[in-house]
């Protein structure tokens, strides 16, 4: 179930006013949920409406299995079948996101959205770098994010839907905040993948392994450039998204609990890691391996941030379960 543009209805009591307490906000949110004009899904003729998370998850899993098999038995046939499964997975995930429209303001929606962008990245990379073991690195991350999404709260529960309208994308600055952070998360994910590949390649060089044997990877230089570009692009997005979020949080709910939520603290921690990362790269000129490790730490924080509930959702849950005011 999803809510619709009925949120735009000026008569419903969901519009936030600045400086309201968490308790009153949560009550208002729950009230809003109850009065929301939920759209009853009409029977759709398209078969894609029946696509589930398992459909694309399994498609990616088969594609991953085939890519692993390709390491042992390289051949065009296995590659094309793997690509077909990957493309089918991406199509299914796109259909799923299009029909169910999980809001990226929720951990569930955010994880699936980042997984979708990385799935596009996987498919592009696998086609573009036919000889590289690209999918072997990207697909586990895609699968991990999808798996994590399935463990977080159901998007149709009250706590998820109680997200204030601006967080749901119905208000411009809320949407901008969400999109900026989502893009930053994608950038960090790409940086993470480049870092993992960099470490594997550097390890092969350190051990002086046969350059033409084993897993085929891009050169250190290319991977380092990929990581650098991803981090350089993600940092301003993260900074702007974070600042915007702070302004919105201050404006609407300046409650200490909100400022110390896992999501907010995690995002601030991520920003700090980024600053350190940029300093080490451009001022201290530390070796690529250390930068790669730090990017992996940043990605870990991204996963924590994505998987943790937004302060507003927490507030709604607290209110709904008789939590503290």
């Amino acid at each position: 179930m999803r809510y619709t543009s009925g949120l735009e209805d000026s008569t419903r009591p969901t519009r936030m006013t600045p400086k309201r307490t968490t308790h009153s906000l949560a009550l208002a949110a729950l009230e809003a949920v109850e009065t929301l004009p939920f759209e009853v899904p009409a029977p759709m003729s398209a078969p894609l409406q029946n696509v589930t998370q398992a459909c694309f998850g399994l498609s990616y899993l088969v594609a991953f299995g085939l890519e692993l098999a390709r390491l042992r038995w390289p051949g065009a046939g296995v590659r094309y079948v793997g690509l077909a499964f990957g493309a089918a997975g991406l199509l299914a995930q796109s259909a799923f996101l299009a029909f169910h429209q999980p809001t990226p303001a929720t951990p569930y929606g955010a994880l699936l959205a980042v997984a979708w962008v990385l799935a596009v990245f996987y498919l592009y990379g696998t086609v573009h770098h036919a000889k590289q073991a690209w999918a072997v690195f990207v697909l586990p991350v895609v699968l991990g994010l999808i798996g994590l999404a399935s463990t977080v709260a159901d998007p149709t529960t009250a706590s998820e839907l109680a997200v204030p309208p601006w967080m749901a994308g119905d208000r411009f600055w809320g949407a901008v905040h969400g999109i900026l952070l989502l893009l930053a998360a994608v950038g960090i994910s790409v940086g993470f993948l480049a870092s993992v590949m960099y470490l594997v390649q550097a390890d092969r060089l350190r051990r002086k392994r046969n350059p033409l044997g084993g897993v085929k990877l891009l050169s250190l230089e290319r991977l380092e450039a990929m990581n650098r570009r991803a981090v350089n692009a993600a940092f301003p997005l993260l900074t702007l998204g974070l600042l915007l979020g702070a302004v919105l949080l201050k404006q609407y709910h300046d409650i200490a609990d909100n400022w110390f939520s896992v999501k907010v603290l995690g995002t601030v921690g991520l920003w700090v890691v980024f600053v350190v990362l940029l300093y080490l790269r451009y001022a201290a000129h530390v070796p690529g391996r250390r930068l790669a490790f730090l990017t992996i730490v940043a990605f870990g924080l991204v996963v924590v941030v994505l998987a943790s509930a937004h302060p507003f959702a927490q507030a709604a849950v607290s209110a709904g379960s008789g939590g503290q005011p």
Partner: protein
Amino acid sequence: MNLRVVGCSYRTAPVEWREKLAFDGGKLPAATAELAARFGGEAVILSTCNRVELFVARPPGDRPFDAGLAAEFLAETHGVRADDVSPLLYDHADPAAVRHLFRVVASLDSLIVGEGQIAGQVRQAFDAARKLGTTGPLLNALFPAAVRVSRRVRTETGISQGHVSVSSVAVDYVRQVFDHFADKTVLVVGAGKMGRLTLKHLQELRPGRILVTNRSPEKAAEVAGWCGGTAVPWDGLDDALVSADIVLSTTGAPEPIMTRRRFEEKVLARRSTGTMVILDIAVPRDFDPRIHDGDRACLFNIDDLTRIREQTIAKRHRHLAPAEAIVEQEVRKFADDWNRRRSGPVIGQLTSEVDRLRDEIVAPLMAKLNGKLSPEERKHVEGAFRLFQNKLLHGPIAALQEASKDGQGGTFSEVIKKLFRLQ
């Protein structure tokens, strides 16, 4: 088929004899034409640094070309004694000759198994002979088939995977670190012979700048002139290393020219750019091996490169059995195709002739019975004649096909032609 291949290779003849018997560019066309003319058949000469082979196909029934004739031919062409040449030669006939060519072109008989040069050399030899008009139906079918076998062996097995020269392995390592080279600086330290070979490979990457340093400024200038680089003084080695991305070291120094301490203090501490690749192919080594960390500095010495080369060769040998199986399969296929091609026209002629005879009998019969037979009955009668013809011809055709497989197709074809009075 009446096919022979006679020749010598690195397995049977020492290099001085291979050099004596080789057909250099200028000699090859005349020798091929002479070989074809003298033995009245098709001829191709394959001459490389590792082998000299004469492929001769003569009409069925003619005296086969053999090692004796080949020795005489080689002796006359190169001005040596036939008795000296004879012991160096091997001789393969018919399917064995096909097998030999397929093994050679697939690089199973090469000094370095899986090397890619031989397929091109075989193709060139065939092209040269075809231009001269010394090839015919058999060699025109055989050599393209051999090239296909080579392609199949390479794609279906890992026999040609990896590089087997130290220089190529060095470049493979460089490619693992760098993606583009237009903005890279190569520093050449020393001027050894092996260094020049590796530098040639590095030059193919089109680096932006080449610096050359040597204890002797004259030698540095000479190498710099040869490779289009810039000579830098030996005293400036540390500075040159700071700006270098790829270092190729080949000095003859008895002690390492770069200790770990010096490298860390004078080079690494001053570098702000990424990874440096050092190819130390000098013996004794020029760079302290402890410099290698796989991140800021990747150091590969001659032992590392040779180890990879040997690993690659060993790995290629593991693909020999499947490659030989492909060759065997292709030899059988070629022989079958060739024999079918030889017996096919006779079978066609025979069938047409008996069709004609049947029509000669059936047509008047049908004319006589005109109106007395229903269309259904007419079809039955015609079918009975056709069935009789098929049963009659089944024996001779099957016998001819079996004989073709055993290499006796020619004789059987002649017998059938005579028995059935075929033109």
